């Protein structure tokens, strides 16, 4: 059932790693303000990797889209709730300005990326629709 696929899962994990590194970088300088260029570079790379993931998934000809949508949809719901809680913590701890923008950007990427990884990881082993 496991046929050779484009590097969709690899892009997802690389995007996740970029988001995690950017958040660790920003958090390690609290409450000071670090040079934000590395964070922008990492988050831009993660965004491009997620877009590449979406394009590759959209281009798959033989794929169980129903399984993908089922897993990714429920995961997205769960991660929107988790992400909402994390955003609340950012706001409650008075995170503001550019720092809040960068952390929220990373959070949105995280919320989108994880369901894509989970959905693809399950659907790749299912019979194509």
């Amino acid at each position: 059932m496991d046929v050779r696929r484009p590097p969709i899962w690899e892009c997802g994990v690389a995007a996740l790693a970029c988001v995690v590194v950017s958040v660790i970088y920003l958090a390690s300088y609290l409450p000071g303000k670090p040079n934000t260029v590395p964070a922008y570079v990492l988050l831009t790379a993660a965004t491009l990797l997620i877009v590449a993931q979406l394009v590759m998934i959209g281009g798959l000809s033989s794929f169980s889209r129903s399984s993908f949508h089922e897993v990714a949809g429920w995961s997205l719901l769960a991660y929107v709730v988790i992400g909402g809680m994390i955003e609340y913590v950012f706001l409650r701890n008075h995170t503001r300005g550019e720092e809040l923008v960068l952390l929220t950007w990373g959070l949105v990427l995280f919320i989108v990326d994880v369901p894509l990884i989970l959905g693809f990881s399950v659907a790749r082993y299912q019979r194509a629709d």
Partner: protein
Amino acid sequence: MATAAPTVEPTHGPPPALPEIQIVPRGGLPFAAAAVVGLIVAIAGNWMWAIDFFHVVGGGAWTTLDLFLGFVLGPIIGRMSIPARIEFSARFMPKLVLLIPTLVTMTLASGFQLAHNLGFLDSSYPRHGWIVASFIVVGIMAVIAIGYLEPANIAVLFELKKPQPDGELIAKLMKRFLYTAGITGVMQVATLVIMTRIAT
């Protein structure tokens, strides 16, 4: 004196019937929800004892579970036959789907709030290097858990729901699951070192 020949019980029968698989065990949802609601209330009310409780209990259970899974249960499962692994996975994996995210959420959310309240997040804190080290360890564990472990877990459960599960595929995914559980077990040892360094 004649002795009766020992009777040999047949060892090969029909494969054991698999239990009905629930990807997310519904019976556990109220407990997980109660833990998360308690966590939110503790953080919103900024109750130090409750925040400390969630961090210690969640962290202790998560660390123990990862160490047990990686170093005790993992090698045992690795030596099981494929039908035995399938039956074990069918009963065990759904519980992890609920248990691990709940423990991780409890530990990290309360830990961040605790560190914030105690001033540990401030870069002027003398042991800030250890705090950053804990971020890095958690970051590595997050990538491994979300990128490798959780997808393997969910994929196994979907395979088990099929009328004819592919034993080879389940064995392959379980191997990935067990290797990554071993790596997170090692990372948990690093967590124990860091946390005890911060606390003393």
